[in-house]
Structures are given as C-alpha cells and as structure tokens.
C-alpha cells in the first residue's frame, strides 16, 4: 500500500506533535479557547493528540461579557459534552466600572477586557504555557511569530529578540513567571481550517453560517445588534442576510454579506474572497501596526 499524505494530514500531524510537546514539557499548560472556528479545530486536534486518554490540560476562556449569546451557549454545551475542564475568566473590576468600547474606545477596552484579563488569568492559574489558535496568515506581524513564543515575566513579547526555532525542536524552557505562548495552527490558513472542519465534521458556532440577522450598517461595516448599542442619529437596524467570518465581541466584530449557510459553501466563498478575514475586526485597524503593538503587550 503506498499513500501520499494530503496537506491537511501534514498540518494535522504537525499540530498534534506540537500539542504533545506542550503536554510533556510544561507543568501547567492551558488552551486558550475563544469558541471560534480555530478553537474548534484546536479542540479536535487536542482530542486526537491524546486519544484514548483525556486532554491533559484545561481550557481557558477570557469572557469580555460582550460575546454573542450563541457563542457562550455553544461553549458550555460543547465543553460539557466532551468533559473538558473549562476555566472562564473575566476582568470583573473593569466590567463593574463600566468598561465598554463606547466609553473607552476599542483600544482601551481590549486592553482591559482581553489583554489584562488574559494576563491576570495566566498569573492566577500559574500557567506556564498558553496554547493559542493564532495563524501566521492572519496578520502581517504574526508572520514572524514562533510556534513556541517566549514571554517575559510580564507576559510581553519582544519581536526583535526571539529564540531561533529550527526543525521541530522547540525550546520551551522558562524560568519562574516566564511563559511560552504556543501556536499549533501557525501553518494553517483560513481555507485549511474550513477544509479540516468539513473533513472532520467539526461542530462550529452557528454564527458562521449565513442567515437573516438584525444588524446596523455603518459605512462599510455590518454590526450585529445584540448587546445594547448606541445608535447614531438617523441610524436604523435592518434585516440582512449575513454571516460572521471571525468571532469576537458583538460590538467589534463586523458581519459580511453572504449567502453561505453550509461549510462547503463557505469554502467556495473563500475561494472568491479577496478580503482578508480580520478586516471586519475593528481592533486591528485602530492604529497603524496595531496588532503588533497589542501583541507586544500580551494580547494573543
């Protein structure tokens, strides 16, 4: 029997290898679970890596409280069904003092509810390896990210001073309070992710599929209305056939016009796309080079 592995097989094999390295090399790893499609793929890869054993680390969700209801429902049902050890962390202090993107601007809001909350949670649970679903094809500054990416004691990334990474020999050695961010999906593209979801029949949040939703159209952004939203003068919600290409907080995740209501249709749609997926995320564009700045501070 002679066989040739497909690109999905090769990507899968590499990611599983990485996850097993994390489990072996670190005392307290955790998987950052954001409920999106990349997290769903990571979850499946983690199941595969340790089957028939259990996934040997907890999942951590940073909940800004502005996530879509469907995301939270999906998260809870999924983790319960699969017996996953889930930690949910929220920067309660910031929420109680009324943090939201209108009051603070998206930059400050993200800094408090995502970056700060993440760093706090990592510290609280003494996590020495945080596994994230970021891909290198997502954004320019991510193209140079390592698979094992070193963070100093303050959770910061120094892009000019990264450990060289050769072959598949990852250096995960850290001193106390330092940590490693691990990116098992580094070499996957958005298309790979959807093709894998199709091949493996992986459940994803229904928000990814097109249907008529109540949204606000502002400039070229389509903003789904879920949490209270301050409408400007003359703005009116409308019913629009649309779907989410990436999932974040309701205020900051734009929808795209789409008819794609199945995975194969989404893949077909991707082939035609000439707009990258993060464009609908307001946070990436609020400042030139903004993703890199956020990453240096500790954002995923």
């Amino acid at each position, binding site marked *: *029997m002679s*066989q*040739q*592995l*497909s*690109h*999905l*097989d*090769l*990507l899968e*094999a*590499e990611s*599983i*290898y990485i996850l*097993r*390295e994390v489990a072996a*090399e670190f005392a307290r790893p955790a998987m950052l679970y954001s409920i999106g499609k990349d997290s769903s793929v990571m979850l499946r890869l983690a199941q*595969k*890596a*340790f*089957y*028939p*054993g*259990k996934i040997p680390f907890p999942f951590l969700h940073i909940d800004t409280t502005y996530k879509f209801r469907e995301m939270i429902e999906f998260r809870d049902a999924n983790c319960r069904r699969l017996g996953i050890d889930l930690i949910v962390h929220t920067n309660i202090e910031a929420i109680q003092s009324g943090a939201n993107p209108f009051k603070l601007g998206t930059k400050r809001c993200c800094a408090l509810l995502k970056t700060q909350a993440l760093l706090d949670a990592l510290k609280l649970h003494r996590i020495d390896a945080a596994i994230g679903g970021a891909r*290198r*094809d997502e954004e*320019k*500054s991510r*193209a*140079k990210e390592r698979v094992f990416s070193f963070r100093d004691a303050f959770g910061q990334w120094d*892009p*000019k001073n990264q*450990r*060289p*990474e*050769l*072959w*598949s*020999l*990852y*250096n995960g*050695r850290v*001193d*106390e309070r330092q940590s490693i961010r691990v990116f098992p999906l*580094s*070499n996957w*593209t958005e*298309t790979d992710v959807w*093709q894998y979801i199709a091949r493996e029949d992986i459940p994803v949040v229904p928000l990814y599929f097109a249907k008529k939703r109540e949204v606000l159209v502002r400039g070229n952004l389509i903003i789904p209305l879920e949490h209270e939203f301050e409408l400007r003068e003359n703005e009116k919600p409308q019913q629009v056939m649309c779907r989410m290409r990436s999932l974040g907080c309701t205020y900051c995740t734009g929808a795209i016009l789409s008819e794609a209501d199945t995975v194969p249709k989404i893949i077909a749609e*991707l*082939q*035609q*796309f*000439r*707009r*990258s997926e993060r*464009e609908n995320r307001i946070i990436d564009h609020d400042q*030139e*080079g903004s993703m*890199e700045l956020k990453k240096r501070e500790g954002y995923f």
Partner: protein
Amino acid sequence: MNSLNETAGMLRFLTAGSVDDGKSTLIGRLLWESGGVYEDQLEAVRKASVGRDGAADLSLITDGLKVEREQAITIDVAYRYFSTPRRKFIIADTPGHDQYTRNMVTGASNADLAVLLVDARKGLLEQTRRHAYIIWLLGIRHIVLAVNKMDLVGYDQRVFTTICDVFEQSTAFMDTVKKYFVPLSALCGENIVRRSPNLGWYDGPTLLEMLETVPVPQGSGSGDFRFPVQNVVRPDPDFRGYAGQIVSGKVQAGQEVIALPSGRKSSVEQILLYKQTLGEAIAPQSVVLTLKDHIDLGRGDMLVDPDHIPVVANQFLAELIWMSREPLKKGVPYLIRHAAQVLCCTVIEVVHGLDFQTFASHEVETLQLNAIGKVRIVTHKAMFFDAYSSNRATGSFIMIDPATNDTVGAGMVCAENLAVHDSAPYQATVPLPGTHSTGLTVWFTGLSGAGKTTICDSVYTELLALGFRVEVLDGDVIRRKLNSDLGFSQKDRDENVRRIAFVAQLLASHGVVVLVAAISPYRAVREEIRKDNPNFIEVYVNAPLEICEQRDPKGLYKRARNKEIQKFTGIDDPYEPPLVPEVECRTDSEMVKASSARVVSAIQFFFASRLNKDKGQAMPCPDAGEAGIAEQSRVRSNREDYL
C-alpha cells in the same frame, strides 16, 4: 484565492538573496498572482507606502514588523502561505545580511527547496555562494537559481547563461543537489506565474510551475522507521500506548520494532490515529502505537526498525551553527534537545571552522555568532542518531544554554559517526585536551535539612583558602536551571543525579574539586555514578528525620505532611543511606566545623594517595576518621606537589 484540492500536497520552500535583489517583490508577486494577498492587506500596504515612493509596493506585503518597515529591511524569518490547486506552499522568507545567518539556517531547517535570488546586473555575489552553501549544508536538495531584474539587462540571454554557468561551476561539489534555473522579472511579473514574450528564448517552466512539480519527500514515508516517544497514553490500567510522530519511514501493524535505549524487541500491536485503527502509518504522521509485549517506555525513548538501527553513542561529531552573541565555550555544560530527548552535553573539541569565502575548513579556537564549524560533543548518556545527510529528524539537534535558557546552537550530526558506533563510552577520567591533572567529585547525600549545603559552604571556604579550585553544585540551584525539566519521579531523580554527576566530572576534568549537595536518595544510581568515576568521594550527611523535620529550613516537611507536596524524601519517598561512605557527618551531634574538617582531610588524602600511587607507592585509604584530622597538617604542607 485559488482552490486547493483536499488531497493536494505541500511544499515548504525558502527564499534567499542579497538586499535589494528583489526578494520581497518576488514573494509579493507570487502571493499576488496566486491570489494569496487580500485586497485590504494591499490597501494597508498602499497606506504604508505613502512616504516612500507613493506607489503601492508589492514588497511591503512581506515586510512584517514595524521596526523593519521603518528601517526598510527584513531582519527575521517570516512565513507566507499560498496555494494553487496542486499544492499548498509555505514560504520561509529569510533575510540576506551576513549577520543574519542564523535566520537563514532557521528558515532552511524545514524547507525542501530553496529559491536563490540573483540580480541580473550584479551577477553572482559572494553572498549568493554563501547562501547556496548553507542551503546545501542544511540538507535541501532542490535549488532554484532565479535570475531577477532581467528587464534591466534588456532580457539578454547571455547574461542569464553566464550567471548559470558560474553558479554551476562554483557549486559543482554539491552533487547531491538538483539545480534549476529561471530568468525573470519580479517587478514586471515575468516568468513567475506568467510567461513573457520578452523572454521568448527561455522554454523552461515558470517559477511557479517548478514549485508545483518538484518531487517532495514530505508525506511519502521514505527512510528508516524512527518513532521518538513523546508521551505515554494510559487512560486506564489495561491500555498502554505510545504517542509520537513517525519522523521517518513507515510502520505496519504486526511489524517488529526495537526500543532504544533498552534494545528490547517487540512488535506493533495497533496503530491508532484518534478513533481510527490503521494498518500502516507513514512519516510524518502523529499516531499512538501499542506493543505486543509490556516494555517500559518513556518520553525520549525511540522505537526503530530492527534491521536499520541508528547509532547509539554518547560522543559524536557534528556541524554546529553558533547562534549566540556569547561565543561557544568548550568544557562547560549545555543542554541538547534531540528528537524527544533532553541531554546534558559539552563540546570537547572544535575540530575546525568553516571559511565562507573558500568553503575550506580552517583552525579555530571557538565559534562566534553566525559561525559554522565541526565539533566533537560528549553527552551524559547515550543519544540515538543518524547522520543528518540521511535523516534530518534524527540527525539534528539544538543546543540550549541552561543559564539563560536561550537556544545558542543548531547542530547536524556528521556521517563520520557511523564509524564510532561501537566506541567505548566516554570517560572524563581521560584528561580532556588542554587540561591538566584531574580534580575530584565530592558527593554530599542526605535528607533535606540534614545540613548538606551548610557543610558544603564550609568546606568550600576552607578549600579556597588552601588554594584549591572549587565549585559547588547545589541540587536546588541545578534543579532550577539545568534540570528544570525534571520532576521527582524515580526516573527523573535518577536523571537529575546523572546529569549533576556528568557536570561535576566535566569540571573535575579541568582540575576543579566539585562539591555536590544533592539529596540523591537512591543508592543504585549513586553506585552507578561512582562506578563510572574513579575520582569520587561520597559524604553521607546524616541527621535523623525528626531532627531534619524540626529544622525544616524551607518549610518543605510541613508542606509534605499537609500533602501539598507529594513524593517527598523521608515522608512518602524512601531515602537509602550509603553503605560505605568515605565520610559520614552526624550533624545532630557534631559541630559544622568538625564535619567540614573531616571532609577536607578526606579530600586531601584522596589527592595524596593518588600522588603516591602515581609514584608507585601504595598508600592506605584513610577511613576519614580521627586519623584524617591528625594527618591534615602534613598533607596541607605538601599541597603544591600534587596540585
């Protein structure tokens, strides 16, 4: 974006060239024409281009980090992705400058093919040859020489052929490499994806056609079967599986395998990939294997083909690329990460360095940042490896400085090692090159809180005053640094002891007296390291458990009693006292000064007796009791003679 067939293969390639040869433009072009760039990324690029020359600059697609954009140079490896219906491509985009050799090596380590860019006007530069050499050294077997900026030389065929000829000649010795040549213009998009009438004289494939059709080793299962065990999967007592990635070759259910280092044979019972049971699996699949027989395997062990086993040795030659600002130091401990193993090692010899101008070897003392040289390495226990030229996965390793945790070197095992297969294990008692008389390992064992560190400190001060060269290896410190990857299982504790013993022996080979303070609770491994080391004294620091627990200087006993710590020596893990230690210190009944004096005298006796032995006179072994102290002054006055 072009649709990618679900069964398409994958090619990882590297791009290299000197600054301004047009590498960024070429990649930008490749991504753009194959649909790998999204419009909003292009718009962002347009925004950023303003201020440079106004027009959208395709090269900006690839220049990732802000620092670099400001300085307009590429300083780190960046990865890019695109696909065609035939293949998915991963580009490692590596910087050209001399000082970034380490980045180029990084990019090359995973690539199957390299695109080497040349500016048609400038022809082959020294740097191009250097890049070709690194690519070859790193085991890449396909090089595409892309002669760029043909538009600036009037699309002259002679310019192209001359450059190709010179390249062929200067790289003739790379006979295992397949070379391809293509003339192109990255700026005008000629011969990248589309042909151009301007280059009508060229009838070969375009760059993209080459990339789509070169045969890739990835995913074909070639080579000898090698399976480093990453984790043991034990969901219940009835199931014991070994998780890992087949790094080369293939495996079938029922096939015989040998486990290293034990050398035990068994056969594969099941090959699992999640809920599927496979009849055969090939590299680089990640699977779980179960074996017919119960052999105790752990992380770092390796299952291999019984007919083609790798070299098992603890000394080998390797090409080493140095990646740290601190030059390589001979004789000091580094860590090696190889397959799924971590080993303690040292470089005992720099055989030669490599001259990038001539590709010839020359004598060097050490390796500086970005230098490449052949070195001889000794590890503290056996490594199982193949030559890098025949197996990239089992022939490669990285070197880590345990003090900083930085990756400082990348190594490739030389083919010459196949000859040393049966060589005897390395003995540090054979004086290392450039060293003089051998020192001594003084091993303090005992319960936590027994007083090992205290006596050690006192002995240290006394020995220094006597003019010895002394070093202390404290178990707690070593565990934080060198051995931070180890826990407290029996296996890890033994490994801890072996590594410390190795480092001690290294230091001792430079004439240092090494004081080791480590609980080292198990007798068997202490006996093992003593057997391997004739220059060894064991000191049993003895205080009853109750006393140690009362002292509890680090609060550990309390935590162990509260079950906050498991497997704590003396509480729920055994301590096996030495049967015949050279010195025993009863710290519950004896003053520190007295204890340390007895240790010092035992050390002095050791050297005195060795001196006499060298002179052919037998000397009774001191029992390190009262006699030791009595003899002390005599020995002390003779110190210069034997050091």
